[in-house]
């Protein structure tokens, strides 16, 4: 299992489009991927779950990945978040 903390820099936070990108990307991996924020944990493969979390700009989230392709998954999730979802 690997875990990494990120700070969300997008102006609107994780809005509809970033949520869609996150869920799409996460769904490509066999590993289980979750987002943890303020003790709340949701499935990163669920666009509904991500949107419901309503992550605001400046908020810190943990990405927790566990499974056979966890390393590769983390590299790509990290890229997506650090690139600010290409917005």
């Amino acid at each position, binding site marked *: 299992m690997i875990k990494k903390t990120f700070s969300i820099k997008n102006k*609107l*936070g994780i*809005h*509809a489009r970033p949520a869609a990108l996150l869920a799409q990307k996460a769904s490509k991996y066999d590993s289980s991927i979750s987002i943890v924020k303020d003790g709340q944990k949701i499935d990163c493969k*669920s*666009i509904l*779950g991500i*949107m419901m979390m309503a992550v605001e700009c400046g908020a810190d989230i943990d990405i927790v990945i566990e499974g056979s392709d966890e390393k590769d998954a983390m590299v790509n999730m990290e890229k997506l978040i650090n690139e600010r979802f290409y917005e």
Partner: protein
Amino acid sequence: MIKGVAASSGIAIGKVFMFEEEEFIVEKRTLTDYEIKGEVMRFRKAIATVREELKKTSKSAFEKLGKKHSRLFDAYSMILDDPMLKNGVIKMVVKEKVNVEHALQFVINEISQSFMEIKDEYLRERSKDIIDIGKKILKNLTGTKINGLKDILSEVIVIAHNLSPSDTIAMRKDKVIGFAIDMGGKTSHTAILAHSLGIPAVVGLKNITRHIKPDDMVIIDGSQGIVVINPDEITIGNYEREKKKEQEVAKELGKLRDLSAVTTDGHTIELSANIEVPEEIPIVFEGGSAGIGLYRTEYLYMNRDDLPSEEEQYKQYSEVSKSILPNSVIIRTLDLGADRMSKTMEALAERNPFMGLRAVRYCLKHPEIFRSQLRAILRASVHGNMKVLFPMISGLDELKIVKQFMDDTQYQLSKEGIPFKEDIEIGVMIEVPSAALTADIMSKEVDFFSIGTNDLIQYSLAVDRVNENVADLYNPLHISVLRLIKMVIEKGHMAGKWVGMCGEMAADPAFTKILIGMGLDELSMSAISLPKIKNIIRSISFSSARELADEVMAAEDQGDILRMLRRDELSRENRKK
């Protein structure tokens, strides 16, 4: 071919869209252990079907509307396959042994509830998408149809048992090219809205929904009130030619919107619109109107079991008045009775309802109703540029009583410290011959006249305008009618008051030139007719219109009048060529 009531003119040819307004009532059912597996399979199958549907919709949205719009359906696909939704439903079916419809509705409700609590407005709005997806799956599971008018993506003709005004307004004008419904008459709300939206419509078809199947092709002939189901090639060809002609004319007229209604020699005519409901205001602007020349208030009283409160009226009148600013609105007090009845009116067995207790006569018999409306109007008058028009006044005595009501209401309001416009303009509708004949006397008591031709003609010629047996005797060009109109205009002008017309005659291009020539200052009509009339005004000179009017007024023979008008029309057409 099915005949109904012609509600809104124009031709539409296309595929049908069966609109059914219904809410899903899902029953909870407990499953036996053997059923569970099948139930889960049923759910997966429904999801797969909806996924295919969405792909198709996304593709057609992309082709027709571009990438931005197709993305919405891609987002729908993601929600459809979301583990929270899918696993949530399956888990509930398996654990609680309930039918999938119930589980789906439960999960959808829960998710959409959580969305509604989100602070971010955009995300909160997604709860609607989720409910929509839920409906799509549910529709697939139950096999029933539930189609939203807003979801329509291709050009269709809407077929429905009934359409509420809000349904009608929700229709996208570029997608819904026509509609046909079982219910309604020419004056139903829906018909009026269709007319002002310019969507061809046939109403009162009784059971068209039973004759048409989802994949049928139909022609709507809104002028004739005809619906042709699955027409042959020749019929389609004929109608298509007709439609093309209509479109060309409309395109030309659309260019006139922002131009004023001025004759070639610089005489300006005020062109305004008739409306029934506030929803029509955007169409008034589209038509290029200078304001509202007739706001019929009776629709606020019809199709309901109670009377509108003063507050409700105040709100609606203010809304109309504010939204038409800086232009003015002429609000006509209640014109119920005869062919327009409200449910709250006692059923009077009148043998001659058009000559019975209607309009202002009814109001004077029910002072509480009249007072409540006058209060609402006066209160709303501070919010814009409002004028009051009293219908069916037959002479000075009646006018004085009505004005006394106005004074009393104003006095009452000032005593209560409620603001109103003290110098609000008052007008009388001239639709009874006795009023026309005493226009000189009444002109001192009012600020303007508005001639209501529908009634003026029926009373002058003693022709019931809804009786088919005497329909051929209904003649707007009858010398007596023209003389009455001319007299009202002259007497009004002599007293320095302006004179308008708000009947159907004002909207008929055949009469425009002669009416202008007779000296009318204003013409008010359904917004859809405005460009057509404006086009005529801009193509004639006031001097030639006056000549034509003088010539016609001197005629003695009815046939001569028709010949004069036809000759004039021909010479205008020749000049155009």
